[in-house]
C-alpha cells in the first residue's frame, strides 16, 4: 500500500496511554500503544474484549471522557498535527471532518427521530458548508455511493425503515459525508450476517480504493482481519503484543498469544477433535507493567516473564514484524534474550535503538521512517514501563498488587 510521499504517515500514535480512574484503582485500558497508518492502508487491530481496542479508537477520536484520561506522554498525530493537545472545540472539527468513525451497532449512531437524509445533511452543513437543496442532493449521492438503491426516496426514510445492512451503509455514508482522511471502523460488521458482512467489506474496500483513505479496522474476527488488513496489530491487555504484515502474521505468528488466538479458531482446523484453547480470561491491568501481561495464560511462560517486561523485537523474515516476548530474538539462547529485554528496560534517556546492537534490529536502518519510529517508540514504552524511566513516577507504579492474575 502506498505511503505518503514525504514519509509522514497519515496517523501516528505514539506511546498512547489511556487510563480510567475509579475510587479504588486505576485501570490502564490502553498502556503504551504505538502504531502508524498510511494513506490508502488498512491497519487491522485484533484482540479479545477488554484488550483495549475500542478505547484506542475512542482516544484517537477524542472521545475519552472523565473518569478516563489520556496521559500526557501520549502522542496522536494526524498528518503531522498533534491531536492530544487540542481543545474540545478544535477537536470537534477533526472529529467527523478529518477522522470519521463507524461503530458496531448502526442504530446507536443513528438518531431514530430524524430521517437518514437529515442526519447526513447535518454532517454536510457542519463540515462542508453545504445547505438546502445542494446538501440534499449530495446526501442522495452519498447514499448511492454506498450502494443504497432508490436513494432519492430512501433519503427521507427513518433509520427503523432500513435493514441492518442498509443502516450500516447509511452510517458509512454519514462518515464519508465529511470526506475524512482516516476512517476508524470499530467492529463494523460484527452485528451483521455473513452475506451482509461481505457486502460491507466489499464496500469499504471500494471506498478506500476510490478515496485513498486510511482505515483502522478493529475486530475480533481473524477471518475479517485476513481479508481487509494490510498490516495487523494484535492487542492484549492494553498493549500491542505483535505486529506484522497480514500474510506474515497468519503464516508465521510469533507471540504465544497470537499463536493461541489463531489455533483456537474452529474453521482453521476442521479436522481437530478438540480445539486448543487459551485458558483464563484477559486480565485488567491496574499497575504499570513490570512483567509480561500474558504470563498467567501463556503456555510458554517461564520465571523471568514474571519480572521482566518484554520489549518489541524483530522476529520472522518480514522486515516490519515485531513481537513483545522474552523468547525473542529467536537466534539467541533464552538467558541472553532476557538480559537483553532487561537491559532494554533499564536504559533511560538513551534511544532504544541504540540500546541493542544493530544486528538485532537490522530493519531499523533498512526501512523508511515509519518502521524505525514505530520500533523505537515501542521500546521507549518498555523503558517507562520498567519503572526506571523518567515518567515512572507518575505512571502509577506503586500498585503492584498482582491482581491481574486473578
Amino acid at each position, binding site marked *: 500500500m502506498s505511503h505518503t510521499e514525504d514519509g509522514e504517515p497519515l496517523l501516528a500514535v505514539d506511546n498512547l496511554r489511556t487510563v480510567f480512574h475509579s475510587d479504588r484503582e486505576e485501570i490502564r485500558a490502553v498502556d503504551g500503544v504505538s502504531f502508524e497508518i498510511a494513506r490508502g492502508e488498512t491497519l487491522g487491530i485484533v484482540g479479545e474484549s477488554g484488550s483495549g481496542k475500542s478505547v484506542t479508537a475512542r482516544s484517537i477520536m477524542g472521545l475519552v471522557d472523565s473518569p478516563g484520561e489520556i496521559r500526557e506522554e501520549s502522542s496522536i498525530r494526524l498528518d503531522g498535527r498533534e491531536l492530544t493537545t487540542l481543545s474540545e472545540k478544535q477537536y470537534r472539527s477533526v472529529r467527523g471532518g478529518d477522522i470519521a468513525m463507524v461503530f458496531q451497532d448502526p442504530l446507536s449512531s443513528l438518531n431514530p427521530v430524524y430521517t437518514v437524509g437529515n442526519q447526513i445533511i447535518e454532517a454536510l452543513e457542519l463540515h462542508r458548508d453545504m445547505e438546502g437543496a445542494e446538501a440534499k442532493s449530495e446526501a442522495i449521492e452519498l447514499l448511492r455511493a454506498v450502494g443504497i438503491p432508490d436513494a432519492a*426516496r430512501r433519503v427521507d426514510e427513518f433509520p427503523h425503515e432500513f435493514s441492518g445492512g442498509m443502516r450500516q451503509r447509511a452510517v458509512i455514508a454519514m462518515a464519508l459525508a465529511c470526506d475524512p482522511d482516516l476512517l476508524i471502523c470499530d467492529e463494523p460488521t460484527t452485528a451483521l450476517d455473513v452475506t451482509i458482512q461481505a457486502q460491507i467489506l466489499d464496500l469499504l474496500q471500494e471506498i478506500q480504493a476510490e478515496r485513498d483513505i486510511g482505515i483502522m479496522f478493529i475486530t475480533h474476527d481473524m477471518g475479517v482481519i485476513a481479508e481487509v488488513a494490510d498490516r495487523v496489530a494484535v492487542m492484549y491487555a492494553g498493549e500491542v503484543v505483535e505486529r506484522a504484515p497480514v500474510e506474515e502474521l497468519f503464516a508465521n505468528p510469533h507471540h504465544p498469544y497470537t499463536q493461541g488466538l489463531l489455533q483456537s479458531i474452529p474453521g482453521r482446523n476442521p479436522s481437530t477433535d478438540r480445539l486448543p484453547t487459551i485458558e483464563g480470561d484477559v486480565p485488567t491491568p491496574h499497575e504499570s507493567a513490570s512483567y509480561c501481561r500474558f504470563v498467567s495464560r501463556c503456555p510458554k511462560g517461564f520465571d523471568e516473564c514474571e519480572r521482566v517486561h518484554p520489549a518489541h523485537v524483530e522476529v520472522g523474515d518480514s522486515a516490519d514484524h515485531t513481537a513483545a516476548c522474552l523468547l525473542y530474538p529467536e537466534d539467541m539462547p533464552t538467558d541472553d534474550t532476557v538480559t537483553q529485554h532487561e537491559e532494554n528496560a533499564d536504559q533511560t534517556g538513551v534511544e532504544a535503538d541504540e540500546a541493542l546492537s544493530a544486528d538485532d534490529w537490522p530493519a531499523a536502518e533498512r526501512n523508511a521512517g515509519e518502521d524505525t519510529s514505530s520500533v523505537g517508540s515501542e521500546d521507549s514504552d518498555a523503558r517507562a514501563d520498567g519503572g526506571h524511566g523518567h515518567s515512572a513516577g507518575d505512571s502509577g507504579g506503586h500498585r503492584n498488587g498482582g491482581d491481574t492474575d486473578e
Partner: protein
Amino acid sequence: MPGTAADTATEGTQMSESVVDTVSHQTGETLLDVQDLKTYYEDGGLLGGDPVKAVDGVSFEISRGETFGLVGESGCGKTTLGRTLIQLETATSGTVSFDGTDITELSGGDLKEWRRNAQMVFQDPESSLNDRMTVGEIIREPLDVHEQGTARERREKVRTLLDQVGLMPEHYYRYPHQFSGGQRQRIGIARALALEPEFVVLDEPVSALDVSVQAQILNLLEELQEEFGLTYLFIAHDLSVVRHICDRVGVMYLGNLMEVGPTEQLFQRPENPYTRALLSAIPEPDPTVQVDRITLPGSPPSPRDPPEGCPFATRCPVRIRPEDIDASDAVWDRIREFRDVIRERSRAEQSIGERLKERLGFDTALADSEEIVDEEFSDVDLPRDVREHVEQAATYLSDGDPDAARAYLREVFGGQCDTETPQYYDVDDGRMSFCHRHAQEHVSPGDELRRRGYDTHDG
C-alpha cells in the same frame, strides 16, 4: 454407529458406561422427527395483516446422540424453529415427534413432564441469568420446579453439576455478575443439564464470547455430550463453529430449509445456491486464500411477505430466467435491482403515513419513476422488449400503483423460481437441496454459476 449412549441416556443408572464409551455417540436411531412444521406469528392487531411466517414448512430428523446444526442469517427462523421443537412456541401446523410422541399435541402435566427431556441454552449469558439469584439457586431452580429428591440431594446435585461444567463448588453462593461471559455460559449449561435431559437446544451458545473462550465452551459441550449421551440442536450463524461441532447441518433461509446433510459433505461440496453463497461469504482466516466470493445482493425479504415460488429467488445468483427474453447478465442484474426497488416501494406504500401524506398532497417521491429507471438502466444497453416492459412498469409506478408494477414485472421477467415452490432433491448421500435447478431439465447450480462467471467452491 453402535453405542451405549442411547441406553444410558434414558437410564441414569447406566451412566458410567457412556463415560467408558466415548468413541462413538451416534446411534442412527431417530430421536426427533420433524414433519412440515410451520410456526407463524399472527398479527392480531386491529388491521389484521399477514402473519410472520417464521418457520414455513420444515422437515428433518435428528438421530440420538448427534449434533444437528441449524445455520442461517438473522431472521431466517432458526431460533423460532429451535424454540418450537421444545414447545416454547406453539406450532401452527406440522408434527414434531420425539421418541415417537407428537409433542405438539402435549399439554398440561404431560408437557411439563416431557420438558424434563428437552432443555435450552440461550445465546446471551448476560440476560439469561437472573442477577438476583445465586448461581446455586439458578441451577437448582429446575430441580425445585420438578420436585427432584430432597433439598439436600438437590444441593448435592448442583455441586456435582458445577464440577461437571468446570466451575468450583464455592461458586454456589456467588451471583452471576461476579462471573465472566464464559463462566456465565457454563452456569447456563449447568442449569440446562440439571434435569438430565436427552435433548438440548443450544441457541448461539458461543456467539457472545471471545474466540479463546468460545473454544473452551465448545470443548465443554462436546465432553458433556459424550458423558451424558446428549442430542444437540446447535443453532448458530458462525459457520466455522458449526463445521467444528456438528454431525449434520440444515441451512435455513426465510423459514425454509434450503439444504440438509452431513456437515463435511455440505461444507466441501455445497449444492444449493444459497449454501454456496453463504459459505463463500465467510472470511477465511488465511490472507493467502483468494476466495471468489458470491456476494449476494440486497437483504432477505420480509417473512411477512415472502416471495412466491422459491424463497431465495429474489437474491439468487442462478435464478432461472424466462426463455423468451434474451438479455445479457448485466441487464438481468439491473432488472433484478429494479424489481427490488419496486418491491421495496410496494412495501413502503402500505404504510399509513405515506398514504395520508399522498392524500394530503405532499410529494412522497412516488412520482419520480423516470428517475429510477434512469438510475438503474442508464449505463446498460437494453434490448427493445426489456425496455418496453420496464417502461410499462414505470408507467404503473407513476400512476401511483407500485403493486401493479411489481406484479407486471413478475409476470414478464419471472421464471419458474418466481412462480413454483421447489421440491427437495436428493443431491448426495443423505443430502437434500431445495432448488429447481437440480431437476433434469435445468443446468445444475454449480454449472450455471460457472457459466455466469463465478469461481465455485467445488472448483
